[in-house]
């Protein structure tokens, strides 16, 4: 009995260690003072962070990823929120088909979506010359996350509140702004958080749709890793982790985090 309980506990502990291991290793590598990471580590240094912030290609990618992430988040919130409202409040017979339609980009492998968009862009003649194509690709894969979060919070909101406002003479637009939106705000903000993280960490879409001179940060890391080892990538990784972690903490403070339910 005791032996089994010990084994069970040990297995669970091992899985937690396994989950954190590669991330801890990257953080360690970013603070290592020498180029090659040895075990045990030799000395503490911030030189790779200095190298990262002084590297023009990395900084350019970092800026692009931030702008792209924010833009894709805003766009997918503006498209996904009304879609969720339609699905929960108004969709009739085609309800489930509509849900499947909105979630489709989540259900098919991202790399296939990227290939489909690449062919399409070349055939309509824009190719990968414009960042707009990359931006649209990000929006398409971000919308389902906003939709899922806002749908969940709309389910918890009684329609009678909106009906009361309407019967007291508020216009539909006024009802939405003054009643619905404030009450679903946590869902919208959590959806925005997911959208930002999905866009900021995206590789599959960016891999095929990035243009010359417009490489988002995860793609820049990917290219560096493909052709060798440079501890600057470790520093870039940690900065990128801190960005998403910062967004998570901010949302948690603002409205509280909500789990994603599929």
């Amino acid at each position, binding site marked *: 009995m005791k032996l089994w309980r010990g084994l069970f506990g040990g297995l669970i502990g091992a899985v937690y260690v396994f989950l954190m291991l*590669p991330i*801890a290793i990257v953080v360690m590598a970013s603070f290592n003072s020498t180029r090659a990471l040895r075990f045990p580590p030799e000395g503490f240094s911030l030189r790779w962070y200095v190298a990262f912030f002084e590297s023009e290609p990395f900084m350019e990618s970092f800026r692009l990823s931030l702008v792209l992430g924010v833009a894709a988040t805003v766009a997918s919130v503006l498209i996904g929120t009304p879609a969720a409202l339609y699905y929960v409040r108004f969709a009739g017979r085609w309800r489930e088909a509509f849900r499947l339609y909105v979630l489709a980009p989540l259900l098919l492998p991202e790399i296939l979506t990227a290939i*489909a968009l690449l062919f399409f862009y070349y055939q309509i003649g824009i190719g990968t010359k414009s960042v707009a194509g990359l931006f*649209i690709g990000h929006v398409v894969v971000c919308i389902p996350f906003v939709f899922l979060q806002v749908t969940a919070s709309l389910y918890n909101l009684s329609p009678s509140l909106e009906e009361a406002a309407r019967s007291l003479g508020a216009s539909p637009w006024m009802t939405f702004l003054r009643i619905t939106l404030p009450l679903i705000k946590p869902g919208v903000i959590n959806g925005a958080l997911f959208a930002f993280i999905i866009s900021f960490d995206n590789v599959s879409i960016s891999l095929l749709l990035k243009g010359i001179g417009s490489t988002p940060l995860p793609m820049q890391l990917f290219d560096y890793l493909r052709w060798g080892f440079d501890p600057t990538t470790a520093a870039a990784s940690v900065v990128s982790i801190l960005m998403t972690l910062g967004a998570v903490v901010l949302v948690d403070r603002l409205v509280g985090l909500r789990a994603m339910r599929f």
Partner: protein
Amino acid sequence: MSGIARAKWLLAAPVGAMVFGFFMVPYLNIVVMSLRQPSTTQAYGPGFTTDNFVKAATDPLYVVTLLDTLRLAAMITLITLALAYPVAFHLARTESRWRGVLYGLVLSPLLVGVVIRTFGWIILLANNGLINQAMRQLDLPRLQLMYNEFGVVLALVHIFLPFMVLPLMGAIQGIDPRLEEAARSLGADKRRVFLRVLLPLSMPGIQSGCILVFVLACGAYVTPLLLGAGRVHTTTTVVVHQLELFLWPFGAALALVLSLVGLMVVWLYARLSGRVLRGQS
């Protein structure tokens, strides 16, 4: 009144247009592309053909890659399930005050991009990586941990583990603990309680977790490319390679064959596990 009816419709219009224009049409376009004639000078030649599908489905090179991809995905799914079940069970039933922290630990890898997590594994598993340095210091032989299936499977199990824990946890939380107590008090040992009570009742969670991880594993690209480094071929790496060679119609056909076969496996699995579910209820 007609104003409101129109306004309702307008709510769905942006998402309708976006998904239609930049998802549905491009996917239909892949189907058309897969039927085009290959060409060496352009993206595709004039006329249509089914040769690309014949080649994708019969050429031993691509069939072996496809089977390898499915085998790896199945292996990853099973290992993930075996590791995730105890963790999900513990998280669903524990009353420890660390529950929130442990839950956060399971989910936190999702906040770290796939490239970064793969990078961590490279530092550990490379030929002169941390593990092999330790082996050398202990005068043990060097282990080949990367550039092979082992490394790819290990890293993908890591990446997909949270996707398995979440549905399992949901299913286990829905099982009344009194059912286990009842089985125990009626004389069932732990193994029987697990096999006859817990496992059948958590089957819906197992099913959705397995489907999710299998589909994700079939579509994985970055990790097989970086950790396999040209020595592990999956259908996705081969498809993207076709694009780099500008063999677009064939790449499109190959991608469609992978999606279709993957969907068929999922459908078969759902049917089989559905039968198991019904048989035991």
